Structures are given as C-alpha cells and as structure tokens.
C-alpha cells in the first residue's frame, strides 16, 4: 500500500531553489500529493493524418487517458500491441505532445513539461530495441551515456569505478571490451538497462523491455533491475503485453484502445475475477458456451483457439468446487464433442480478456 504524503513544501521556495527549472508547464500544484512523480490528465493523442488523407479523421491512440505515477512504485501498462501503452510512454518521455490534456512530471514540488531538460535529467528510457552502438564496446557505450547525462570527466571515463560497478552488477565484466554487436539479445538488454541507470535517474521508463528474450534472459533482466531498484529508490513504468511481466508490477493499468479499463494491484485484479477457470477447446465453441451457460449457469466467453477449434472460458463461482464443475461440464456433452478441457488459475490475460473482450496476444490495428 502506498503512503499518501502531504506536500509540505512551499512551491515559491522550491521554485526559487538553485537548480529549480524555470520552464514549467503549469503552476505549482500544492494540492497534489507529493508522492506523485508524473501524471497524465485527460490526455488525447492521435497521429497526424497522412498527407493524402488530410480530411480523414484519425482514430485517437490515447483517448481521455488519466493516470498518476507514484514515487518509488513499479507501475505497469498492460495491453496488446497497438493499445496505446507505448504511445503513453513516448508522451511521458517528451517525444510527442498531447493533442489535449496534460502530461507532467512533478519534480521538486512543481509541474514540469516532459520536454524540459530538468525532466529529462530525471528519467531514463529503455526502448523496445536497445539504444546502443553496436560498433562500440560495452564500456564505450556506458561511458558515452555517462557523458551524455552530464557526469564529470572522471566518472564518464571508460575505466571509471562507476562503469566497472555497473558492468559487474549486470554480469557483463567479462565482455566489457567486446563490441556490442557480438552480444546476445539478453546481454544487450542488460547493457541497455545499465546504460539507463547511469546518473541515478528518479524514474525509469521501460517499453517492452524483455521482448524477444528467452525465459532465462527474462529472469536475469528483472533480477538485475530489482537489485538496483531498492538501492536507487527508482520509480519504474513498464509498458508490456506479457502477463508474467505485468505480474511483477506493484500496480497495473490495463490499457485498451487508448483508455485505461482497470487499475490496481495485479493480485487484486486477478482476485476480482473470481476463482478458477475451466477452459474448454472444441469445434463450434459458441454452441458449447451456450450449452454450458444454460445448463450450469456459468459465465462464459469464447475466443479463437487453434484452427477450427475455439476456446470457451468458464468462470468457477466463488465457493464452488472447480474439479466437480469440470466433471459436470464433461457430462453435458457426448464423447468426442470436446477436444480438451482443463482447470486453471486465472491470469492477468484472463482479467484483460474479461474486461475488454480482447486477447493480450492479439495485435490491434495500428492507429497510425
């Protein structure tokens, strides 16, 4: 549970302090809780229409998107590709500006635009593809990142203790002087993360940080990040379509067609869905779902399965015995009518499917 800390800092004093940014996007907002580090306020964003279709209205990528990010939390944006979560992250990083609404960083008690140098000193971004120079060594890449963040010459030297420490922390010391283009995907990801942590940013924005990684590399990435997280008091925002990655977050916002459809702790979201799920795979799955709903009174939904087979997911009501219900479902149909049937614990993918009717794995049509 996040503690709400009242803002005790007089904004005028904060604004007058050395280093306070003059290029703020709005007035100080003393009413906002001080543990809010960034926020989206009713943000709408759509890509510019192509020149050939200037009059054709573009669908909004973000539509009435409101969200606060609290200091020190790990917030996840969970949604399928094209849902708007990466766009939200790019607005937070100042790569694009909203059509309406506001995106602000709240640093030192004042609201700051994501495009201001002060905000950009406060966050780092790990993009979907590593932002590294493959022609250079791991040491060179970290050294350049340190220099770019304005660290002194001694600290940004390729042989500085900071760079040695980061290479060791991310298990890259043995390959420190090798060119990055020879690294595996997992090593590049770890190096990219080490790069992003240089300069001790307040917040880390991760856009599908583990896409393309195998299970071992996935675990290594998050183990390395979690070790640094507590030490650096990092705020992390992760955009992901992976339920297993989303489950690692403290808080989740489920994003569907540019809107947040649910928000909360991952385990609470799963718990709200109910108990176990019975998943049936069969031909003419709509017909099967209808029979189960009519005969047993279970809530069902259908989704595409494998080829001509479809999936029917049935929610086991709270207090009911899932195994016994499964047997009753089997008894409803003649032999060979059902292809497979299984009892499983619900996941965040099930939560998302229930709330939106869409699967996390599916790619929604690109708005751009």
């Amino acid at each position, binding site marked *: 549970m996040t503690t709400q*800390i009242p803002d*005790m800092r007089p904004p005028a004093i904060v604004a007058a302090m050395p280093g306070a940014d003059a290029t703020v996007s709005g007035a100080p907002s003393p009413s906002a809780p001080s543990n809010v580090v960034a926020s989206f306020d009713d943000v709408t964003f759509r890509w510019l229409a192509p020149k050939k279709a200037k009059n054709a209205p573009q669908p909004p990528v973000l539509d009435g998107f409101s969200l606060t990010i609290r200091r020190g939390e790990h917030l996840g944006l969970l949604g399928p590709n094209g849902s708007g979560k990466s766009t939200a992250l790019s607005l937070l990083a100042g*790569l694009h500006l909203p059509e309406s609404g506001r995106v602000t960083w709240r640093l030192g008690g004042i609201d700051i635009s994501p495009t201001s140098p002060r905000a950009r000193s406060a966050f780092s971004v790990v993009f979907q593809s590593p932002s590294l*120079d493959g022609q250079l060594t791991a040491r060179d890449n970290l050294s350049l990142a340190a220099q770019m963040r304005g660290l002194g010459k001694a600290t940004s030297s390729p042989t500085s203790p900071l760079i040695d420490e980061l290479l060791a922390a991310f298990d890259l010391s043995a390959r420190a002087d090798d060119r990055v283009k020879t690294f595996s995907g997992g090593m590049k990801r770890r190096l990219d993360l080490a790069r992003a942590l240089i300069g001790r940013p307040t917040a880390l924005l991760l856009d599908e940080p583990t896409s393309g990684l195998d299970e071992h590399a996935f675990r290594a990435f998050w183990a390395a990040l979690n070790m640094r997280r507590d030490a650096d008091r990092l705020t992390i925002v992760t955009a992901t379509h992976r339920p297993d990655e989303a489950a690692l977050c403290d808080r989740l916002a489920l994003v569907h067609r540019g809107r947040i459809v649910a928000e909360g702790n991952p385990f609470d979201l799963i718990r709200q869905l109910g108990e176990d799920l019975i998943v049936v795979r069969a031909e003419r799955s709509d017909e099967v779902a209808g029979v189960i709903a009519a005969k047993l009174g279970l809530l069902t939904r259908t989704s595409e399965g494998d080829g001509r087979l479809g999936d029917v997911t049935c929610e086991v009501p709270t207090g009911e015995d899932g195994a016994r219900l499964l047997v009753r479902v089997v008894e409803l149909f003649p032999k060979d009518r059902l292809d497979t049937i299984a009892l499983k614990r619900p996941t965040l993918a099930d939560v998302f499917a229930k709330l939106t009717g869409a699967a996390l794995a599916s790619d929604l049509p690109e708005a751009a």
Partner: protein
Amino acid sequence: MPTLQPPTVALQTELASNLATDLSPAPNGNAALALTLLRRDLLRLKRDTGRWVGLVLQPLLLWALLGSGFGAVFQVPGLPGVDYHLFFFPGLVAMIGLFTAIFATMAVIEDRDHGFLQQVLVAPGSRAAMVLGKVLGVLSIAIVQFLLVLPACTLAGYSLADISYGTLTLAFILGTVGTTSLAFSLAWLCPTTHAYHALMGVLLIPLWLISGAMFPLPADGWLHYVAAVNPMTYALDGLRHGFEGGSSAIATTAPIVTFLALAAYAVLAFALAVFVARATRITRGAA
C-alpha cells in the same frame, strides 16, 4: 473536516530525500550532448581500423586513376598547361567532405529509430545540440581524412610551403559543415536508407559534379547559372584559393565572394538541419 498533522521525522526525511533527488544540479545538457556525439564518432573511427585504409587509399586511388585517364585530353580554358592531377586535387578534398558527410549521416536513419540516437532524443539537451554534435563528429572524421590526404598534394604539383593554411582550413570547415548539415536534414526526413541513397544520387553528388570539381565550368549556358547557385562551387573555390596561397586563377569567384557565400551556406544549412530535427520529431497530435 480532516485535521492536518505535522509531518513525522520519517516523513521529513523522505521529503528532504525527494527534494535532493529532484533538484540535483542540472548538467549542462547541450554541451554534454554535443560533446558526446562528437566523441562517439571519434570512438567509432578509432575502433574501426579497416576504415583507416579506405580513408586514405580510396580518394587517392580515384585521384590517381582519373588524373591518368583525363590528363592527356584535359585543358583549362585560358590556362594552358594546368595538369589534371593539380586541377582535380581540390575537387578530391571537397569529395572527402561530401562522402564523409553522406556515409556518416546515413547512419542517422536507422540510429534514430532503432539505435543510439533514441537515447539522444530523450537526453537533457536540445535538438540544436544534437545537430551540432553530429556535425562536429562528421567534421572531425573529415579533418582526419583531409590531413592524411593533404601531403599527396605535392604529387599533384602544389607546394606545401605555398598553401594558405588558414584559407584552406576555413574553406574545408565551412564547406563540410554546410554539406553535413544538408545531408543530416535529408537523412532525418528519409524514412529508409534506400530513399536516402536515391536522394544522394540525384541531389548531393550532382552538386559536387557541377561545382567545377571534375571539369572547368563553362562561362555561360545553363550549367554556368546552376553552378553559380550551387554552394559546393564556393566550397571548391575556397579550397582552390587555399591551395594557391589565398587566391586562385582557376577559381570562379574572388576570395571575398567565395567566403561570404560559404559562410551563408554553412549557417543556413545548419539552421535548416536544426529546424528539421525540431519540427519532425516532437509532433503534437492533431486531427
């Protein structure tokens, strides 16, 4: 009505810690960004040892082969006896700046969407600093290449003692800054490297060809007028002035005109690159 409670010691510590993190001194983002990009290009040059061979041999080979081939048939109108090796050498130096600019800025396209430049776009520095860093990086590589090739001018018939080094350096720097900035703008606007290749083939390389680098410019006709508005004509004239002690008989413009035009080229091309980089990457969503 809720009653406000004074903050606890733990809370005060938390607030002080947050303030310290948020208000740590902001680095000079622009200088840091520009110097990082400059250093990156130099590091890439240092790490790529094979590139050094190409840096020296490729231009010299082209110069030697073209000089030998055209030498027998070449003549500068009004200046009989000028050897093609001598005529072409300033063109070769201009080509060094042009080709370095083209190849270095081509990397911008993929780098911007899937590589190193992604972190540059969210770094605490301006787009102008980004363009400056890239231009300085390309200029540094071009200067290294220029210095390695320069001694060969004696083989062309120039004397190292007669060169006006200030004029030569200024012409090379202004010309390379202008061309790199122009190439950067085109690279930034191009969606793919294929499109960039095509654009270079129909725009920048023809500009070099009709600058007087490979053949004397005619005194009239359409080519004369195109050359007069071609900024690379002035870059080449500046180099010719430099190689010939400050004023060249082969150059098409007087030194003062040359350098005013070159300075305008460098400034306007750089401003265009900054404008393009700022306008096309931070876009406001719009219906």
